[in-house]
């Protein structure tokens, strides 16, 4: 099956493996203490999850399209949005190239 359907990514095993650390960090935001820790020190929090330099840069720039291109799951990307103050419409429109 192709990786892209109607301009959207299939979240495949390859994507899940490639963006595993980024998605895992996002999953941690289901815990309030981790949400607070990220807000207090983004860089330290990203380092604690072993994000690559490129992944950290995507988060720093709130580059939602870049995160999705890399392999983020949309369901995890919105958890990152939860701590950065970006809701689904902003994230979705960014991935569509509209903002």
């Amino acid at each position: 099956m192709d990786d892209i359907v109607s301009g959207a990514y299939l979240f495949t095993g390859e994507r899940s493996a490639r963006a595993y650390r980024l998605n895992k960090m996002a999953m941690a935001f289901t815990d309030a203490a981790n949400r607070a820790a990220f807000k207090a020190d983004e860089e330290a929090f990203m380092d604690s999850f072993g994000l690559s330099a490129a992944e950290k840069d995507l988060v720093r720039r709130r580059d939602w399209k870049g995160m999705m291109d890399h392999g983020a799951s949309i369901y995890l990307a919105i958890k990152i949005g939860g701590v950065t103050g970006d809701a689904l419409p902003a994230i979705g429109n960014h991935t569509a190239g509209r903002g």
Partner: protein
Amino acid sequence: MATIVGGIGSSHAPTIGVAYDRGQQSDPLWAPLFAGYEPARAWLDALKPDLFVIVYNDHANSFFFDKWPTLALGVGAGHPQADEGWGKRPLADLPGDPAFGWHLARSLVEQEFDPTVCQEMAVDHGVLSFLPLLTDTDWKIPVVPLAVNVIQHPIPSARRMWKLGKAIRAAVESYPADKRVVVFGTGGLTHQLHGTQYGQKNMAWDNEFMDRLESDPEPLADMPLREYMERGGTEGVEMILWLAMRAALGDSVTRVHRNYTAPFTTGYGLLALENTDTGTLPA
């Protein structure tokens, strides 16, 4: 013997929970959705069900990709609410039914479905966004949740969901205690949460899907996942979960209520079917 007395197909979405908690039931954008659940709720009350079996999907809230089950069955005495990343809603934990849950586990495995059996399984908006619209939130009716992977490919086919519904029915009908069971299938309807077509929905297909689910559902099981995604979005593929609900019912159903509204990015559907045929469907 336990019997399946009805089936409900419903969309789920975090925004429904937010609107519910904010008391936006009369807000012009939301009223068609909330009002649409009221007749189904009245029917469900009158049906006097003893148990809900809810086929839904987790959205990386209870599970993560370190261990991501294709099927996960909640057999615990209760099901806590998952924190999805924004804090929990003011809702009590759902009661479970361990005796039925373990029976369902045994029966599914005998029928060659192999769920991950979970004694602690938090549930997310896949269950909790629409359920308060259909029943009191003191949760008098126990819930056995069955989570299906529709997020990380490979995901099960529509045909697999059809067969799962049959297996649920066989499990219910082999349960020795008298129980009136309502089966839910929840997801969708069409929505696209990322990519160049972000925000697009397909209202014509949503309504065609509900038409066919009611009157001629079985061919929907033949539709490839790719076609579901082309018609309804990569995230909209959740709608295959409604097939499990429909297959758990008999050939002949009576539509009690149907509602559709799509004020935002997702088609919100609701279909309540009373099971009027207790004969067995062909496999």
